[in-house]
Structures are given as structure tokens and as C-alpha cells.
């Protein structure tokens, strides 16, 4: 997994509720033989592009200075819906390193932590203020997301703390994935399975 320690950059205020994973990446892009990295151009295609394929200038992702922003600000329930991990790959493919929202879809949240994309949960009033500060100083405003110290620094220098599970923080900071850690517990897993085979033999086909 990619490491995440800190990111500083422009944050795009995509201030809508329930940004679902179908909106982030259409399912047929995951059927086509596109690489994970190659999904970036298709991220949010339903709002970034018009039906004729041209860019929609009204979409904030197509506007300066947000075009290459590494952070997204959004409202409640970002990443709800489908379990497709392609939503996280597409966000990474468009250069997103962190998403700040009041809360996230559970499966999307887990998928982020498997890929080094940081979901940051902050109260909505903080996010609205971050969005206001971004818009107040277009081109100059920057937000910092610091995982080591668990804080967001606003364009005006305000420090906003956030919470993250210690286990996940450690894994993200060090780029660890779970499989190797779990593999080291193979004996415990096998012991559990041996015991379960005698107590619930019908489960074991």
C-alpha cells in the first residue's frame, strides 16, 4: 500500500450529500480493460463531461485552481453505495490524496485504508468553513492534511484535529497491508479452524 503522511494543496469543494460510488466511477469502466491507474480520466465523468464528451465548464473539477487539487471537501455520506474499490482507484488516478467529509460509506472507508487514500471525518460546519476559506482566496488557498499529528490546517492557519483508528494510522503512515500481518498468525487461524471443525462440522464442505 502507498504511504500517506501529509498532503498540502488545493481542496475542491464538492459540496453535495451522498456522493455515491456510481457517481465516482461508472461500473462499465471497471468492465473495460482499464488499469487501476488509468481510471483517473473517468472519475466523476457524469458531472465532468457533457453527453457529447466535452468538458462541462460548470463542473468545479474543470475549473482553475481545482483541476489538479489533491483534496476533496464534501458533505455527508461520501462514498455510499456500491463496494467497488474502483471508486478509490479512480480518485487516486485523478490525483486525490485525501477526502474530507462528515462521514463516509462504510465499505468505501475501508477501501480507502487499503489504498493509502485518507478519508478525514470532520463536522460539517468545519468543512463549510474550509470551503469558504478556499473560495475566499482562489489560487492561493491551501489546506494541509497531516496524518501523523491527526490535524487539518485551514487556509487561514486554523488547526482542526481529527480522529483516526490507531491501527489504521500506523498502517497508512508505514504503507503496511494487512495480509502479511495476518499471515504471521497462521497458527492461531489453523487452531481456530480445527476447533470449529469439531463444533460446527456442517460448515466445512
Amino acid at each position, binding site marked *: 500500500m502507498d504511504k500517506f503522511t501529509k498532503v498540502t494543496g488545493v481542496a475542491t469543494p464538492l459540496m*453535495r450529500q451522498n456522493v455515491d460510488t456510481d457517481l465516482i466511477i461508472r461500473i462499465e469502466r471497471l468492465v473495460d480493460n482499464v488499469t487501476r491507474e488509468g481510471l483517473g480520466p473517468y472519475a466523476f465523468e457524469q458531472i465532468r463531461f457533457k453527453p457529447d464528451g466535452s468538458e462541462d465548464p460548470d463542473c468545479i473539477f474543470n475549473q482553475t485552481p481545482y483541476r489538479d487539487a489533491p483534496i476533496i471537501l464534501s458533505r455527508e455520506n461520501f462514498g455510499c453505495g456500491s463496494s467497488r474499490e474502483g471508486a478509490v482507484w479512480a480518485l487516486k488516478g485523478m490525483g486525490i490524496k485525501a477526502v474530507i467529509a462528515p462521514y463516509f460509506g462504510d465499505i468505501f472507508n*475501508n477501501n480507502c485504508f487499503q489504498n493509502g487514500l485518507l478519508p478525514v471525518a470532520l463536522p460539517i460546519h468545519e468543512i463549510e468553513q474550509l470551503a469558504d476559506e478556499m473560495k475566499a482566496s482562489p489560487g492561493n488557498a491551501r489546506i494541509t492534511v497531516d496524518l501523523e499529528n491527526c490535524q487539518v490546517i485551514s487556509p487561514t492557519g486554523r488547526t482542526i484535529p481529527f480522529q483516526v483508528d490507531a491501527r489504521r494510522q500506523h498502517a497508512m503512515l508505514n504503507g503496511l497491508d494487512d495480509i502479511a500481518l495476518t499471515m504471521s498468525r497462521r497458527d492461531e487461524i489453523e487452531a481456530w479452524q480445527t476447533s470449529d471443525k469439531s463444533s460446527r462440522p456442517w460448515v466445512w464442505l
Partner: protein
Amino acid sequence: MGKTLFDKIWDSHVITDLGNGFVLLHIDRLLLHDMSGGKALKEAIDKGYPPVQPRLIYGTPDHTMSTKPGRTEHTHPPGLPLIKSMRETTSAYGIKLFDLGQDGQGIVHVMGPEQGLTLPGTTLVCGDSHTSTHGGMGALAFGIGSSELVHVIATQTMVQRKPKRMRARFEGKLMPGVTAKDMILHLIGELGTAAGTGYSVEYAGSAVRALPVEARLTLCNLTIEMGARTGMVAPDDTTYEYLNGRDYAPKGAMWDRAVAHWRTLPTDPDAEFDREHTIDMKNVAPQITWGTSPEHVIAVDRAIPDPRTGPEEKRGAWEAALQYQGLEPGKPIEGTQVDWVFIGSCTNSRISDLRAAAEIVKGRHKADHVTAWVVPGSVRIKAEAEAEGLDRVFLDAGFEWREPGCSMCLASNGERVPPGKRSVSTSNRNFVGRQGPGARTHLASPAMAAAAAIKGAIADVRKI
């Protein structure tokens, strides 16, 4: 203090406590489908982690192939590499695949219960958010992403944090025209699409106890649409009757032993939940969604909501939804002209769903301007429906009778509602573009969808 159904299953599957609130949880069943199954197996194998318990893994293609009558794997070429990859990786490790054209093939969440692979008290995962469906059998089932899939293939375990517990009780008798689909849509309408985030949900109450298993599967299917990854119904005699004799269910003395264990699973009377919500079934009417989130739902005899009188924090979302859907606030939703009707998906493609739709359709004909599809959930359901003559009922009424698969629920196989066209669908998501770019989706029960096809407009099934 007593324990909940969820706690009993969760606690008995904890292999070890990892600290910071995380545990290593044993996974009893892994189900694969063609969108992510072959890719995840290949990734695991390439990383040096071949499947450690291949006999606990089962697969079937459902997402990417055509459902056109007489289809083969070549009918929708973009899906072919995924189906082939799934076939190659499963056969290399002796993983059972219910392949295209074979008995048992179907939508993965239909296949599991149908085969008796989904058992009460088991942990079951699949790379699909509607894995919550299997909770209708009393299993702890949830959807996972691709990386987590690889972890399960490699270790038959998952690193998980225990969710909180919510109980939703439905009390009383179902009113005319009301189904499990209406119950869950009504609940999502009351609580909102994120009420379950961070929770496991148990559905209980007299109305749930009275539901047959297929309806319980529908109820649990939409759990993710209120944010919770897992929803469950406690197993009971209804569950055991449904399960007994199925291909992979225990047999003979082993069956008796299993049932004795399953009877210990229901929530103890003194168990506590973090959140409780009760619905009086007197207040539940046939439902239809109007917007672009499953929480945008009303009883079919109500008017389309007006954002100006709705909650302030939802005003923007409601306005955007009405604009996308091409609807006017304040007008009755009944009578809104419909172009497409889709009866199918892991929500509503089982034999009882097809029977309910056929009952409305029988002796009638669809409206001329409507394209209506019926996509059975599995090869077995299709055969059972044909043996009962349901295919003739639909075909005589001008519907298409198709092959099993996910089809127009999410349009991953090229089967789409055209841009700007309005669909009444028995599926689970009415998101922007879900059934195809620009498609306008209204979620409803199979009988409501059938009624819309006949009337050519959103219709109240109670008036048919």
C-alpha cells in the same frame, strides 16, 4: 446481560483480538462474481497467496454477460475476459463455479441461499455491497472491496472492527399491496440513507417473523441503502423449512445437530441495542422512489415532495434530484408516464417475486410505449417459472423473458435504460446514471413494477 444474534455470531468467529478495537474474524463463506472474482483470485495468486480454503469459496458469473434470450458468453464481448479469467482461476484451485449455461448459475445473492451455501450462524462475504441479502437466512454477511477479497482468499479471515447494533422492528400485519420491498423502502425513507452507517441491523417484530425467506432476503438486501453493511433476520422454522434438502445444506444427523445450534442464535430477550426503531405496519403503504437516493421515497398515493417545504439541509439535494428526474413538486406521482420496466436483480428476482408480478400481468397487456423486461435471478428460478407457465404470462403480455443475471440493475453488461427515459425498477439503487447515463429510475416492488408496465405510468397496485 443477554446477547444479540449479531454478537453471538461475531463473537464466535473472533480468532484473536488485534487491539485498538480490531479483531481477526473467521470467514466461513466467500462468494465470487465475475466483476471482481477472477481479478481478486489472480491478484492473490500473483502475490504468492493462493486460496487457502478453496472449498469455502463459490462463484458464479452474473454482472457482465448479456441476459438476452439465448445468450452466450460472446453476446456481450466486453464481459468475456472477466468471465474467462474467473473460469481459469477457479478451476486452477478446484473452486466450484456455477458457470454460464450450467444449473445453479445466477445472481450471486440468489445463488447462495438457493444452493444452501448460505447457512444461519455463518460469516459470509462477497465483493458486492448487496451481500447483506444473505442476512435473511440468519447469516452475518457483508460486502467488501477488492483488497479485502484478496485478504480473505489468502487467509480465510478479515481484520474488522465491531459495528454498533441497531434493531428495526416491524409490528403488525402487512396492508394490501405491501411487500418486504415496501417495508425496507419505508424504513429508509424514515431514517435516511446514512442511518445505518457504522451499525449492524437486525430486523425483527411480528411482520418480519411472518415473512417467508425470500421476502427476508429482499428486506436485508437494501440494508446497505441505509448505510449499514449487514442486516439480519434471526433464523427460525421458516428458515429451516426453506433450507432443508438444499444441495449444500447439512443432511441427516448433521442437519439435526446444525438446527440445534441454530436455535441458540436468536437475540436474547434482555439483549441491548445501541439504537431501536419501530414501525407500525398500519402506516406502510406501497412505496415508490421519486428522486436519486433510496431515501427519496413516498407512498404511491402521495404527491411529489416540494423542496421548499422539506428539511433545509436536504433542499439542494431534493432540487437536484427533481431536476434530474424531470418531475414537478406537488403533483401526484401516480400517473407519471413510464418508458421502461425492469423486474429482476438480487433484490427482487426470486420465484415469489415473479409470481407476484405475473399475478398483476395475467390476462393483461403492457402499454404500447413501455419496454418491459423480466430477468429471473437464476437458472433454477427460470426453469421453475417456466414449469408454472409464468414465462407465457409475461410473453403474452408483451414483456421480454430473459436469461439470469444482474442486467439493468447497474448496466454493467451494456443493458441500459436510454438517456432521459423513465424506468420503474425492482432493483435497489436509483442513483444518477445507475441504470445508464441519464436514466431516471423509480424503485418499487415487483407487483408495482408490473402495474406500471400495464398502465404505462406509475400506478397504485391496490387499484389494479
